[in-house]
């Protein structure tokens, strides 16, 4: 124990390993300062900018566009590309369950307690893509770039409530020349089945014997991870298909469409 209050508390005795410091004053001083700065910022924010208050609630006047609170605009943005039961129920549900599952699926012991990109390339790139690409950016688009009719406008552009955007979206099966109700349904099932099964299966066959991470994961973790990953990547796939190929649905069934 040194006079400055630090305790060299590591069994390994390596010089690089961290020490401990007394919570008072080390931690509490920083907490106090950060609290002070945060409260000043919050007070200035509250003095200068008023919380919004519009006209009284009126069920007979629907604003155009009617936007959800900003933190849900990512989901509202997905309504452009998916039916409500997927955008509003399935995707948020998968987000919550998928996030909860992360610690039990990630078997890589490295990068625990420090910043590293190299040692966790897959985990980090997947998370950062989901966090920014599928969460933050859709929120920004929803907040700043959506106007009447949920059409795209620049933030500085005047909203034209009569703007019409032609949409000739067709189902993927139609695009590929597959006709007939059941033929289309079977094609959709095969397409989605292939999306969920083929890439993980090919990776498994190629890497399962040699890759130590996949070996360590085992089949159960691998299947769940692959399913969640492919579900997540279905979102950008559908967005791409809609924007570039004008695809309406991948799969059309009597009960639901994807």
């Amino acid at each position: 124990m040194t006079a400055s209050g630090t305790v060299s508390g590591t069994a390994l005795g390596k010089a690089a390993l961290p020490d401990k410091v007394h919570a008072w004053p080390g931690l509490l001083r920083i907490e106090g300062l950060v609290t002070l700065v945060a409260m000043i910022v919050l007070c200035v924010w509250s003095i200068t900018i008023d919380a919004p208050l519009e006209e009284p609630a009126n069920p007979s006047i629907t604003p155009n566009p009617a936007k959800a609170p900003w933190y849900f605009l990512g989901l509202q943005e997905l309504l452009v590309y998916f039916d409500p039961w997927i955008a509003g129920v399935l995707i948020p549900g998968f987000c919550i369950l998928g996030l909860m599952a992360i610690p039990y699926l990630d078997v890589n012991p490295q990068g625990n307690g420090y910043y590293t990109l190299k040692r966790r390339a897959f985990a980090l790139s997947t998370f950062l893509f989901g966090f920014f690409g599928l969460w933050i950016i859709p929120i920004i688009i929803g907040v700043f770039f959506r106007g009447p009719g949920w059409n795209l406008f620049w933030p500085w552009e005047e909203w034209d409530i009569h703007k019409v955007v032609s949409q000739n979206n067709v189902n993927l099966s139609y695009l590929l020349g597959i006709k007939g109700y059941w033929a289309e349904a079977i094609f959709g099932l095969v397409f989605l089945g292939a999306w969920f099964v083929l890439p993980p299966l090919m990776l498994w066959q190629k890497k399962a014997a040699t890759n130590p991470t996949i070996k360590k994961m085992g089949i159960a973790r691998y299947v769940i991870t692959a399913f969640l990953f492919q579900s997540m990547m279905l979102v950008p796939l559908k967005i791409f298909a809609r924007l570039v190929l004008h695809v309406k649905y991948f799969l059309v069934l009597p009960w639901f469409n994807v």
Partner: protein
Amino acid sequence: MTGIKEKPDTEKQDLTDHIAQSQIWKSIFRHGFTDTQRNRVLQMTAGFLLHTRPVRVWTHGIRLRYTWGAGGLTFLMYVVACITGIVLMFYYRPVPEYAYADMKYLKFDIPFGMFLRNMHRWSAHAMVILVLVHMLRVFLTGSYKKPREFNWVIGVCLLTLTLLLSFTGYLLPWDQLAMWAVTVGTNMARATPFVGHEGPFAEFLPFISPSFDARSFLLGGTLVGPGTLLRFYVLHCVVLPVVTTFLVFVHFYRIRKDGGISGPMKALEEES
């Protein structure tokens, strides 16, 4: 000990001493204030408020460059929102006849009413942003890994609760913004598979109808109306804060039980 400061021989110091030696003071604070190892420990353990913290913390754990302070700031925003929220409850009635009028009273009649409302709303928004930032930091540092897996799960629950708290509060001003944002937000619920009347497979459950499904359960009716306002008010002011506060304490408790703020030491041990 280098930490011990010599007593300056001034009158002010005498007064300080006099207070610090008084029966009242000593009955409250049982430790001295000279900077000694013993007092540094007693500061943390002798009182109720600080005993929730460890006496010693990892050096890296107090570095803002490492933690970004996001978790603590999220909690601070939650506390601010709770305190301002309780005061706001004095001035707010959750019925359509009064809810919007009370917003106007807050703005024009009640001293600092608008400041109070701003503080509540902006701290809530800051809390949503900070909880996302905190999750990002925890992921980037791999802090959800063994042995902190379950604390990450609690954290995800808290993220969900934060969003629900914010969403239920969004309706309470009872203006156009509130009503239609909540209409849009809850419209998704009618598309819930099986239990939403427009969702897939709802046709197999004959009792599911617009007035009896997941959405009507949330709204207390088929539209955002008086029932919704009261429901959201009770959720916002009672149910969700109680659950959130409970989980916040579990979250904090587990940080300590799981070995404090995550840090490179354990990782180095495992990898070496």
